[in-house]
């Protein structure tokens, strides 16, 4: 006994993160629910910009991923890391900076996203000052975690800790890599990479945000909390080692499966598919390892809600990691991409895997933190069944909607014309599925609220020991000391070596895919007739980004006859070289807009005006929200010169000194559109200065660069 050291576990910081998890879970789910209802009741935006689908959809995803899941990760990591390392966290100060910094970032996101301040990169929408703050707080987390590992009393690092380290390393690389942007104002920037290159980097990031924020840390939590809850060691520790290395090595390559049939070169698409399919093996290795941990404890699954949540979580992980590789096969992706199938797939992962594992963890952790028993087992069981039904009611209708819509898009008449030439027909057909999805979401949300009640009642009956006394023997210094070596060097060695090894494993895939794509010019063939956007079109494009139009509209025509027939010629890389950011999108709730201004899709300026004012003016039964503020707001032209200069720095070939005359050009083009509207009886004072004029200019520009008819008429 005498050689044991006494210390205190920091339960206070664990409690703080757990509370934040619960609170932001409510926010993330509620915003998602509002968005789900808006999809069949578009008037629910109340004609208020910051309540509109395009702006709250990123708020929902950010709140769910970074606020709810993020705080849950930190809760679980800080609880388990201290115990596995037999040490208090490295620094109380860093713990608190981490906690409050992360919550401030969430607050900044909750303010800026509804205001339309967004980079439009999915799951990386936050603008540059917040990006910097994320980097700082993430580094603080890393120092605190690695510091704890370095000062640990336990000789060996349990596999959960490996997953935590890989998470930290990879998210650092991803966040930096996907946030390379040039600011042009306090809250605005243009990304350095454009078009197809930006798309590859974005989905290298986007896919790996799923991999290394929603998956690897949760696998770490699974390997810690599931044995705890089942009171059984993990089924196979050897399998967990193989699982870990194979998973992190393979995951990083799979990003291009988000860009199948896009203009990305075939070699990169193929790499994405190959590695996605290979991912089944380690993913299922992990799932099997999790489920078999319950060997001999299955009788308890019938009665213990914690184990129930964990079993469904791991099963959902298995389902979505089987489905993901299938969706990465090109012929299946041809059907699933841009439809609600993907949304259903994602929510099996988030609601099932992340949600249920978090709930299991919280039901296990909160009574222990508060030195008490769970307030009500029956309420926890009720939550389990509501949540499970909620997932089913959420996902199954969306699968159905995805299949239905995709098949309708591809249906041809014997004479070779599209059966459903009017896109809207394919939307109204699936509205009942959207309603069922909202029912599923509501069930899940009600279940969550029951958990909140149950956990707060539990907290009320107990008391947290913020500093829990513990003791453990100091870590033996087994490493042979070199002359002159600092005394703590041996303790550091493995943790640091491990971090470097993980970094190498995850860098290989990124480098092989991204470096040639960025460096080799033949990967992005240029097109002579593609010119930079005019200042008015650029302003309209930035409005399109502000309103989050890409939440529902793609700008990428795949080389299928069903798409070229509907939207015009398929997209080419050279068309996007001035697109900063790229706006391909990943969902078509409305039609593709890549050639909205050209050929058979072209509408009049008056049509666009009327449509944006109220989409049902031109398209009965449309589910697109009204955008009356575009007609009321004056266009801000004060930043046009700096926007032009910023784009020049990034390589857009505007003439030297163009920033000085850009606003004049903008006014001239705006007057032409306003005159055109006036001819169609749309007239009021200051019409040419309104935002709608820029939006019309941008929409009318889309696809005109290479459409032969348009080129000829010029």
């Amino acid at each position, binding site marked *: 006994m005498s050689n044991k050291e*006494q210390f*205190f*576990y920091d339960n206070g910081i664990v409690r703080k993160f757990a509370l934040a998890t619960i609170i932001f879970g409510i926010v993330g789910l509620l915003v998602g629910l509002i968005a789900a209802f808006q999809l069949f009741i578009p008037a629910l935006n109340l004609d208020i910009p910051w309540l509109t689908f395009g702006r709250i959809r990123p708020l929902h995803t950010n709140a769910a991923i970074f606020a709810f899941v993020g705080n849950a990760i930190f809760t679980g990591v800080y609880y*388990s890391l201290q*115990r*596995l390392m*037999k040490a208090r966290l490295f620094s109380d100060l860093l713990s608190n900076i981490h906690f409050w910094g992360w919550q401030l970032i969430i607050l900044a996101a909750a303010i800026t996203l509804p205001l339309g301040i967004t980079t439009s990169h999915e799951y990386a929408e936050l603008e540059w000052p917040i990006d910097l703050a994320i980097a700082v707080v993430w580094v603080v987390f890393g120092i605190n975690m690695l510091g704890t590992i370095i000062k640990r009393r*336990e000789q*060996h690092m*349990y*596999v*959960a800790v490996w997953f935590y380290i890989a998470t930290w390393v990879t998210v650092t690389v991803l966040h930096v890599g996907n946030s390379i942007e040039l600011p042009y104002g306090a809250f605005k920037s243009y990304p350095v990479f454009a078009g197809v290159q930006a798309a590859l980097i974005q989905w290298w990031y986007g896919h790996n945000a799923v991999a290394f924020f929603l998956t690897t840390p949760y696998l770490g939590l699974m*390997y*810690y909390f599931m*044995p*705890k809850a089942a*009171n*059984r*060691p*993990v089924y*196979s*520790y*050897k*399998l967990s*080692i*193989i699982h870990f*290395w*194979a998973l992190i*090595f*393979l995951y990083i*390559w799979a990003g291009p499966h988000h860009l199948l049939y896009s203009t990305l070169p075939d*070699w990169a698409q*193929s*790499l994405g598919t*190959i*590695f996605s399919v*290979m991912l089944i093996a380690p993913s299922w290795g992990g799932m099997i390892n999790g489920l078999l941990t319950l060997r001999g404890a299955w009788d308890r699954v019938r009665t213990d809600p914690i184990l129930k949540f964990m079993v469904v979580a791991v099963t959902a992980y298995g389902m979505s990691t089987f489905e993901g590789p299938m969706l990465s096969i090109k012929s299946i992706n041809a059907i699933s991409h841009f439809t609600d199938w993907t949304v259903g797939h994602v929510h099996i992962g988030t609601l099932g895997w992340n949600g249920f594992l978090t709930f299991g963890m919280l039901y296990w952790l909160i009574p222990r933190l508060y030195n008490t028993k769970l307030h009500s087992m029956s309420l926890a069981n009720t939550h389990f069944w509501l949540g499970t039904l909620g997932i089913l009611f959420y996902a199954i209708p969306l699968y159905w909607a995805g299949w239905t819509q995709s098949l309708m898009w591809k249906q041809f008449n014997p004479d070779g014309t599209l059966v459903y030439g009017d896109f809207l027909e394919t939307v109204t057909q699936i509205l009942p599925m959207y309603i069922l999805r909202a029912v599923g979401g509501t069930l899940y949300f009600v279940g969550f609220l029951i958990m909140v009640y149950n956990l707060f009642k539990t907290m009320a009956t107990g008391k947290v*020991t*913020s*500093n*829990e*006394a*513990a*003791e*453990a023997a100091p870590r033996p210094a087994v490493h042979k000391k070199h002359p002159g070596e600092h005394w703590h060097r041996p303790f550091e060695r493995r943790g640091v070596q491990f971090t470097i090894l993980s970094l190498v*494993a995850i860098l*290989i*895939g990124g480098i*092989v895919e991204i470096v*040639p794509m960025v*460096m*080799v*010019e*033949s990967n992005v063939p240029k097109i002579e007739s593609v010119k930079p956007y005019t200042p008015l079109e650029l302003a309209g494009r930035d409005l399109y980004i502000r309103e989050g139009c890409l939440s529902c509209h793609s700008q990428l025509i795949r080389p299928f006859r069903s798409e070229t027939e509907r939207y015009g010629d398929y997209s080419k890389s050279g068309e996007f070289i001035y697109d900063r950011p790229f706006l391909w999108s990943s969902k078509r709730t409305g039609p593709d807009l890549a050639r909205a201004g050209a050929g058979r899709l072209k509408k009049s300026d008056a049509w666009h005006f009327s449509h944006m004012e109220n989409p049902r003016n031109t398209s009965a039964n449309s589910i697109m929200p009204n955008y009356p503020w575009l007609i009321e707001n004056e266009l801000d032209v004060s930043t046009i010169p700096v926007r032009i200069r910023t784009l020049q720095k990034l390589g857009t070939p505007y003439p030297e000194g163009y920033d000085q005359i850009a606003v004049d050009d903008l006014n001239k083009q705006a007057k032409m559109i306003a005159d055109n509207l006036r001819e169609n009886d749309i007239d009021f004072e200051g019409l040419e200065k309104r935002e709608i004029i820029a939006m019309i200019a941008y929409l009318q520009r889309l696809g005109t660069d290479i459409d032969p008819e348009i080129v000829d008429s010029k």
Partner: protein
Amino acid sequence: MFKYILERAGDIEWMAIVPLVLFVVFFIVIVWKAMSHKKEFVDRMANMPLQDDNTLEVEQ
């Protein structure tokens, strides 16, 4: 230089084959490493989450 090597790669399938070979080699090494652990070590590691209750009955 690197750029020109890549330019000349053309349709050569090494882009897909090299990573595949790399992974197979990597996989063999990790399986070999994992399997070479002694049983006592593996058992100790697997039980780590169940034996981390080092708390004392005293409060601060």
